[in-house]
Every structure is written in C-alpha cells, then in structure tokens.
C-alpha cells in the first residue's frame, strides 16, 4: 500500500482539458524510453492550454518554466472531463515527467483515467465537488490517500475525495504489469 501522503503546490485548470492541450500532437514524436529525449515531454506538458487558462485563476502561468523540464507544481486541480480526446498515453506520461504526482478532478475521460492507472504514471483522484474555483494555483496541498481527502494548507480547508474503487488494486500495485505479476497472470 502506498501510504505516503502526496504533497506539493497546486496547478489549477478549467474543464474539458483535452489531450491536445496536455501534449500537442506535434510533440508526440519524441522517444519515451530515451532518458534524455523523454525530458522534452516535461518541457511541453500542458503547452497546448490557452495562456489565459493556464494556472487559474490568474492565468498565464506555464506548468513548466521556459528552459526547464520539471515543474514546481505537483498536483493538478481541474474542472470536469479532464483528459478528453485522444488515447495518447503521452498525456499522463508527460505530466509525470514534469513532476505531477496526482490529479484531482470531479470527472475524467475514461482512456486518460485508465492510462494513468495502468501505466502507473500518477493517481487520478475524483473530488466530490469541482475544486477548480476554490483552490488557487500555488496553494500548498496534501492528499491523504487513506481517508481519502485533499487538504489545502494555504487556505486551511479540507475537501472530500472519492475512494479509488475498482482500480485501487492496480494503483497500489503501481500499474497493470505489477498487478498482473502479483496475481500470477504474467511471469515475474
């Protein structure tokens, strides 16, 4: 069981953030297995989000600063239907490469959700309510995965998260391969 809490700064986005905004198609050509080249995914993560909607409420905040490949933010807080659009696994992968540990959104597009879990990239938590208007980019957050709950240290607020449900075993194993090995479906 992963019990260590996830902590870090919030990066806030609106609704229907699709995979072309998460990683524009022109960047899908880089290798994900080459240790140097894959860093480019961190550099371009969320680069397709219109500037005024990037890092709400103020906007005009890039996830990753110019000339860097890792972000100072760790937890994405978004409104509905995060990750809609294409099936590209480069989407959760680029966020992980940028240093994102978890996402909190009231709802996800299913392929993005599944890719995040099966690939073991990051944990997609469902919030009971839309938190994108309550949390501001830069707020210090902590996810307690036991409850589960999201604590906003900057504002002194706590919000409910939904239990992971049927994917919990795969999340805790660290992805579909680890899960299948634990259950004897794939040789160790």
């Amino acid at each position: 069981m992963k019990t260590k809490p996830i902590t870090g700064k919030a990066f806030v986005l609106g609704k229907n953030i699709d995979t072309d905004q998460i990683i524009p198609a022109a960047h899908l050509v880089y290798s994900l297995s080459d240790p140097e080249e894959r860093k480019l995914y961190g550099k371009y993560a969320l680069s397709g989000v219109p500037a005024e909607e990037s890092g709400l409420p103020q906007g005009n905040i890039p996830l990753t600063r110019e000339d860097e490949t890792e972000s100072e933010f760790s937890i994405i807080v978004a409104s509905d239907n995060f990750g809609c659009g294409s099936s590209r696994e480069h989407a959760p992968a680029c966020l992980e490469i940028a240093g994102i540990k978890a996402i909190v959104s009231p709802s996800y597009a299913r392929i993005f959700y599944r890719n995040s879990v099966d690939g073991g990239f990051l944990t997609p938590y469902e919030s009971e309510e839309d938190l994108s208007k309550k949390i501001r980019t830069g707020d210090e957050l902590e996810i307690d995965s036991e409850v589960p709950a999201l604590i906003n240290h900057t504002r002194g607020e706590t919000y409910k998260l939904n239990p992971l449900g049927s994917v919990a075993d795969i999340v805790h194993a660290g992805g579909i391969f680890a899960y299948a090995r634990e259950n004897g479906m794939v040789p160790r």
Partner: protein
Amino acid sequence: MGMTLTEKILAKHSGRDRVKPGDNVWVNVDVLMTHDVCGPPAISIFHREFGDDAKVWDKDKLVIIPDHYIFTKDKYANRNVDVLRAFAAEQDLPHFYDVGTDRYKGVCHVALPEEGFTRPGEVLFGTDSHTCTAGAFGQFATGIGNTDAAFIMGTGKLWVKVPETMRFVFEGGSLPPYLMAKDIILKIIGDIGVDGATYRTMEFAGPGIQALTMEDRMTLTNMAIEAGGKNGVVEPDGVTEEYVRARTDKPFEKFYSDPDAEYHSEHFYNLEELVPMVAKPHSPDNKATAEELEGVKLDRAYIGSCTGGKLSDFVAAAEIIRGHKLKIDTYIVPATTEIARGLETETLLGTPLIDIFREAGCKIGNASCAACLGGPSDTFGRLNKEEVCISSTNRNYPGRMGSKAAQVYLASPYTVAASAVTGVITDPRIFIQETVI
C-alpha cells in the same frame, strides 16, 4: 433480464454466461491495432516487460497501420515508422502496412474494415481513441494506451469495466437528401455534451440507422468518443454482412441486444426533423445549425480523416462542388489509398471525382491523417496561423489542427463543400435543392 449487444460480446470473451454494467472482467482480444504514434512506445514497453526476445501472443491478431505522420521530413516521426518496420520484421508480422510500399493503406480506422479486420461479435482494441469506429460492424471496439497495448501483445488479454449502454433510436426512413451521418452525431454530441456518454456504450438503433450504409454508420460510431463514450455500436444486419463477407472469410458470430435489455437511458430522434449541424470552436459539443452560422467568414475548408474522408464523403462533396470555382483554399485528403484510387475511378455525370475537385481548385493530398491532428509543421493542410477552417474531421479543441490561434468548425462534407463554394459558412440545402431542380 436480458443483455445488450455490448454486454453479450464482453460476456462471451470473458468466458461468462452474463455480465452486468460495473463488472470488471478480463477479456480475450481478437484484434489489436496500433500505428506510428503509439506503436513505438507500446513496443518498447512490451520488450521492457516481457524481455528482449519476447514474441507477441498471436501474430495473426496484431495489425500495424502507420498513418499519422507519414509525408513529413520530421526526423523523429520518420524514426517511429522505422521502429514499426523493425518490429514487424523481428516478429514476422503478416499484417503490417508499410509506408512507401504498395501495401501502404492510410488511416487505420478505415483501413481496418477495408482489410477485413472488423468482424461482428469480436473484441478489437487499438492505440487510438477512434478505434470505436469499428463498432459500426457490431463489434466491441475501443481505444487504449501504450501500456495496455503492450500488455495485450504479451498476454492477449485486457481488463474491461462493463459499460452501461445509452441507446439512441432513430425513427424516420432514410436520410433526407441534405443530411449526412455527421449531422446526426453532431446533433447528439451537442445534446449530451462532450462528457455525456463518459464510460458508457452508445448504441445506435432504429429504422433510421438500418437504412444507413456502412460508411455512414462508421461516421456515427467514430465520434462516440467525442461524447466520452467507451464504444459506439450498431447491430449487425445484411448491410454489415455484405461488407464484411466481401473482405474476409473468417467466421464471426452476430450478437443483438435483447428486447428486455437494461439501458442507462434511451433517446429518440426523427431523421426528418434534423437539419445540417455545425460544431463551433473549440469543442465538438458547441452546437449550432449551419443556418444559424450563415455568413461566418472562412479561410479554409478541409475534407478528410477517418470520419470525413471516406469515398461517400467525397461523392457528397463533389455533388456540391461540381462546376464551381471555390472561394477559399480547400484541402482534400482521402483516408486510404483505396479511397484515393476511388477518387479516380468514381464518376459523377461522367467526370471522375478527382477532376471535379481539381477543376474547382482543390488541393489534393496523400492518404493519411494529415492535418486532422495538426502534426509536424510541414503537414499537408495544417493550420499554421490564425486561420478559420471548416472541416469534416472530428475534433476542434484548441490547436487540434495545428495553431492554437486557429478556429475550426466541424460539419458534414455537404456543409463543408457548400461553404468552400461561397467562402462563408453555408447551409448545403441551398445547393441540394438546386441539384434536385
């Protein structure tokens, strides 16, 4: 309680008598499809997890169709095709449609049916969200990521959560002469929203659907994902059988939804009441009628992709374009090489489609995804600046066809063609009535 078509396919493939929405089941996979964007990372995960010498579970069930970034000088994009080529050789794969050979096909979701890989009752996964297109054949088909694809390559299995089914029933005989399947699906997406079917099946049924050709049914199921759907499906019938039988002798089993199957919801439409639809920037559910947008100025028109670049789409466009000089740059991109050949052999009042398009001033590209998803900067038809485009493709999120500053309106090939003739968004009924007279 009965089961839906989708539930029956998932039950059979997981070795159960019945399944119900919410069940997590491991299914046996009949076909896995991948392409040049997601194939290389899937292959690298496959080798990482199963070893350098690992062999795929069943080479007859793996289909590799490069189609996304084909006619580009981008070195990374070309390297991806090299990775596929090396893997096909290493694994001795019979179903690899290599670029630069006469096997090259073009857009995977149209190539799969053309080559006989979409068979009723089967389970097909593909590393592309529009894999749901194949549901038009009464198949369970959905998009997955690279890790899941690598898992299937090694095991032939994948877990699936059984989806609830939303049923869309179409009354009214055949499609009115000015409507296309694209209008139907844009109307539905506009009504339920881009997350209106999240994690659910969209089943299209009723006499209005049975009257559609296979190509039209594919346009519907293709865009199930634009409403967040897990899959889109149409019950197989004589039309399906005829199409599939002409392309493969593999046996298949047809499934139908039981009369007492349980649905999440049922939605009723009458084809005769629908009108030409448009999705405004920047979301497929931002609906308007073509009539409401009459006069919106355009810079470009684009007809292509898995949803709007089939032969019947070009026949429709040619009906309107014939005899006109177009007011704006218009790009024609056949989805596959078979369709590209069709542009030369198919005629309208004695003139091949390709000549109709050339005489009108269209630019004609090679079979591939081309500008449907932007791609490298030298991609044919890509929107590189603040342009306004009307397109027969399926997505218009910011930056989808290239520049974030561009605006994309989605519409049927009829509406795109009518707008190309006038240079502003135009309801195609004006032209269609002309043709009838």
